[in-house]
């Protein structure tokens, strides 16, 4: 480059590295130059819009698109009638690209249009005439399971999308032996991930290369497979190209499949690139929030605080279509059983179809929703037994070497240390008058050994470039969590180079190694291990080639490659030597991390994950007795995520996850009016602002776990989990009564204080 390098950039990169390395991408973000999905346009691109059902449940009698097709500027109109009606889905197959005979929620996709501009597409949507015959609808998941409830899907009798019953140990013995039985009914509303960038996708259809989707996804490989299947394209003719992602939080694991499939179908039909971008209102009314849940839970306890058993009857609200809701329901219904040594459990969980917005997933997969119930119930028991909630938790919490009631094998585990540290830091022994204190504990898996038994790990390529720099090729995605910075640090450590020398490539499914993606808190532990192995493989190749070059053994020390006689070598020299010797290949290390198979059985018993992360949060709160308002003063978040790779980004994860947990505890949640989303905007569906949040203090108990790279493990999902229980328990401690319906609004707390018996 002829231009002098801007001095500030070089200086800043170096400085940032010393305090907490970050990917160079942060510079393009902070200067406004990063290109997100909504920013993309392509030559000749059309704009797509979706016609949505105005009814919660109705039969489609007729769709007349003639007026829309006649509008100047309209290039394609698509209805369900012209598509092969083969259902697709993620966990169960219950969706069509466009509704064919029936709509099942307000927002259901009925037709799609591509036009030269957005205004024309919107006009065309309005010009489509649909004749509906309204059907009776059901909105409450408990009602939906009754015999007389209207049926949403003919092939899902009883409106049950998925169900499971499981019993382990002897529950009847537990309840016979118990000195105390506590029982409560908890409710949790549907929660939207509320990533700030609405989902956008440009589909390009090319007869030679196939379909390319320009859209940002947490699991592009998983979406690629579904899109290929629905379109009946060979997998190699579908590629996903990821722009920068404006937030995910689980909501973009599969994102919004309808948007990807419809933009692809419109691109095929019109012959031009088509962009569909959801409005914020569509995000709420036709996006994929996490399931609402009704949790009835009963716990048997001995007078000394020993937990003997727990029984749960859970109904989760699927909405009209299923996406990942069965998997979320499963995690919601069982993960909390492994926080403590509970010898017997019995759980029934039923996922019910209702005529409401379909559901998907959100950070922590329902583990946080159940944490609200399980941790509240523990405090209710502690109070009745006049035991210290901290002592009760320490008495029962899982420890290293345990096998939990579901067969989870607990390796390195700092849960007891997390509990003690959280209590100490919040001032458990010197509580202030007029304040309430709450504790909670959590476990979360690090990737899954059983989701796909034949795909348990991760792979990566690490390449030495001709200029001596390093490139990582991975399918693991970074959208601000710091994954790629961590990967650069891991590779840099294995190779003994500076992370500044390392670039991470992950955005193209055609070239990146396959990955299950940014889900199940797997990327640092499982993905990171593959990076470590690939970098170690490359290191050996570098040493071998360098030794050939200088005729004697070499070693890397303090970022310098040197032969035993002291001759220094540049990595670029080694790269060029290999390049010449192979007529153009670049030296590449391969990392294949394949964890051993799990003993997981048909009943779902067995070790589900490579290892587990642990956390305990503590909250100090106050209740305004006049209004019922919950004022949270402080949240202490103590985490055992093994050795922390990057404290700067790890703290960012804790602050952000705690904020989401705080929002879910205190004011977030879908509201419905006869199936219509009543708060379909960021003004009405309130997420935390800077003014809403309390002081948040992250602490890390760094117990090295050999399962992950250099002793580290996952953090990004568990950060949200214990917030719910800790806030609920602090609120109950301050109020003297447990509110069991989330969110904990002033209205509900006021009514509880007043002793009102009222269905909320």
């Amino acid at each position, binding site marked *: 480059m002829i231009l002098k390098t*801007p001095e*500030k*950039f070089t200086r*800043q990169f170096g*400085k*940032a590295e010393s*305090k907490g390395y*970050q990917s160079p*991408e*942060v*510079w393009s*973000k*902070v*200067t*406004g*130059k*990063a*290109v*997100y999905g*909504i*920013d993309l346009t392509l030559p000749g691109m059309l704009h797509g819009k979706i016609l949505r059902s105005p009814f919660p449940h109705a039969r489609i009698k007729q769709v007349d698109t003639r007026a829309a097709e006649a509008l100047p500027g309209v290039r394609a109109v698509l209805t369900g009638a012209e598509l092969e009606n083969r259902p697709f889905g993620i966990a169960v197959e219950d969706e069509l690209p466009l509704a064919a005979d029936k709509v099942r929620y307000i927002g259901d996709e009925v037709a799609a249009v591509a036009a030269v501009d957005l205004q024309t597409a919107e006009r065309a949507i309005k010009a489509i005439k649909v004749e509906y015959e309204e059907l009776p609808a059901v909105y409450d998941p408990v009602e939906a399971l009754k015999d007389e409830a209207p049926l949403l899907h003919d092939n899902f009798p009883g409106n049950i999308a998925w169900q499971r019953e499981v019993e382990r140990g002897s529950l009847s013995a537990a309840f016979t032996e118990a000195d105390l039985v506590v029982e409560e009914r908890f409710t949790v509303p549907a929660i939207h*991930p*509320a*990533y*700030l*960038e*609405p989902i956008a996708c440009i589909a390009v259809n090319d007869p030679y290369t196939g379909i390319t989707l320009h859209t940002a996804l947490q699991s592009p490989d998983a979406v690629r497979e579904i899109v290929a299947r629905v379109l009946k394209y060979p997998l190699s003719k579908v590629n996903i190209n990821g722009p*920068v*992602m*404006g*937030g*995910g*939080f689980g909501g973009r694991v599969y994102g919004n499949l309808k948007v990807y499939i419809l933009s692809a179908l419109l691109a095929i039909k019109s012959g031009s690139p088509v962009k569909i971008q959801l*409005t*914020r209102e569509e995000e709420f009314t036709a996006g994929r929030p996490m399931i609402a849940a009704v949790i009835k839970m009963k716990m048997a306890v001995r007078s000394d605080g020993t937990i003997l058993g727990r029984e749960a009857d859970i109904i989760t609200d699927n909405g009209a279509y299923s996406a990942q809701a069965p998997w979320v329901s499963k995690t919601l219904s069982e993960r909390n059983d492994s926080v403590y040594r509970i010898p017997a459990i019995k759980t029934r969980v039923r996922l019910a179809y209702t005529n409401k917005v379909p559901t998907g997933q959100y950070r922590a997969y329902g583990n946080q929703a159940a944490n609200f119930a399980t941790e509240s119930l523990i405090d209710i028991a502690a109070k009745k037994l006049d035991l210290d909630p901290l002592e009760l938790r320490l008495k029962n919490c899982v420890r290293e070497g345990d096998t939990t009631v579901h067969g989870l094998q607990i390796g390195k585990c700092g849960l007891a240390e997390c509990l003690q540290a959280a209590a100490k830091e919040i001032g458990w022994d010197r509580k202030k008058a007029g304040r309430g204190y709450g504790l909670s504990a959590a476990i979360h898996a690090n990737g899954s050994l059983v989701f796909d038994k034949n795909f348990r790990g991760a792979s990566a390529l690490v390449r030495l470039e001709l200029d001596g720099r390093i490139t990582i090729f991975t399918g693991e995605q970074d*959208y*601000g*969590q*710091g994954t790629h910075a961590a990967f650069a640090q891991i590779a840099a450590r294995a190779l003994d180079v500076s992370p500044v020398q390392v670039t991470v490539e992950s955005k193209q499914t055609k070239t990146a190694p396959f990955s299950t993606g940014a889900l199940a808190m797997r990327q640092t532990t499982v993905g990171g291990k593959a990076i470590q192995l690939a970098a170690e493989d490359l290191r050996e190749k570098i040493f071998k080639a360098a030794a050939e070059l200088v005729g004697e053994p070499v070693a890397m020390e303090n970022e310098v490659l040197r032969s035993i006689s002291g001759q220094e070598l540049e990595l670029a020299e080694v790269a060029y030597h290999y390049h010449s010797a192979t007529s153009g290949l670049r030296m590449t290390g391969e990392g294949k991390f394949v964890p051993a198979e799990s003993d997981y059985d048909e009943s779902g018993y067995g070790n589900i994950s490579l290892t587990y992360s642990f956390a305990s949060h503590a909250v100090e709160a106050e209740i305004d007795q006049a209004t019922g308002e919950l004022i949270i003063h402080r949240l202490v978040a103590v985490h055992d995520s093994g050795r922390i790779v990057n404290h*700067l*980004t790890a*703290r*960012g994860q*804790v*602050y*952000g*996850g*705690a*904020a*989401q947990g705080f929002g879910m505890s205190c004011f977030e949640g879908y509201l419905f009016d006869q199936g219509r989303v009543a708060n379909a*905007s*960021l*003004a009405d569906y309130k*997420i*935390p*602002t*800077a*003014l809403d*949040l309390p002081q*948040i203090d992250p602490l890390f108990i760094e117990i090295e776990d050999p399962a992950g790279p250099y002793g580290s493990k996952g953090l990004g999902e568990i950060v949200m989990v214990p917030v719910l229980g800790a806030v609920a328990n602090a609120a109950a401690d301050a109020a003297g009564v447990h509110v069991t319906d989330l969110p904990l609004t002033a209205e509900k707390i006021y009514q509880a204080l007043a002793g009102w018996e009222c269905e909320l």
Partner: protein
Amino acid sequence: MKKQVIIFQLNDEPVEIYVDPAESLLTVLRDRLGLYGTKAGCSKGECGACTVLLDDRAVNSCLVPVGKVQGCKVETIENLSRGGKVHPIQEEFVDKGAVQCGFCTPGMVLSAYALLKENPQPARDQIKMAISGNLCRCSGYKQIEEAILSAAKKLARQGNSIT
């Protein structure tokens, strides 16, 4: 509405466009002038991602009809890092880990910029107030607040005015 000629100062340069004056400043900046650093998160004034400076005040550009900026001064994120320069606020955002997905970042930086122009030494509560119209789902705001505090100190140390 009938199209009109609108002339305003955009990032220290005059701009003249022929446009429906009811169109939002946000879509004019993005779709007509190619300044994609200004983000669109809701287009209803609820998220703050589209924050720009209008005569030195932070506004949601999605709520400003472009007819209203006739003769005014508009500044976007692109003005803070021209020619390879990076503003101290941006440096501190990176240094403190205040950038995660980055979608709220341009708006957040501009709200901070407007605050520091008006109040070079804000207290933490004043910072919270100043960014309370900018939603961020990733960060919990803590590192953003630290970055703004730190940028204020840095600017004071350098004896620099904000611009």
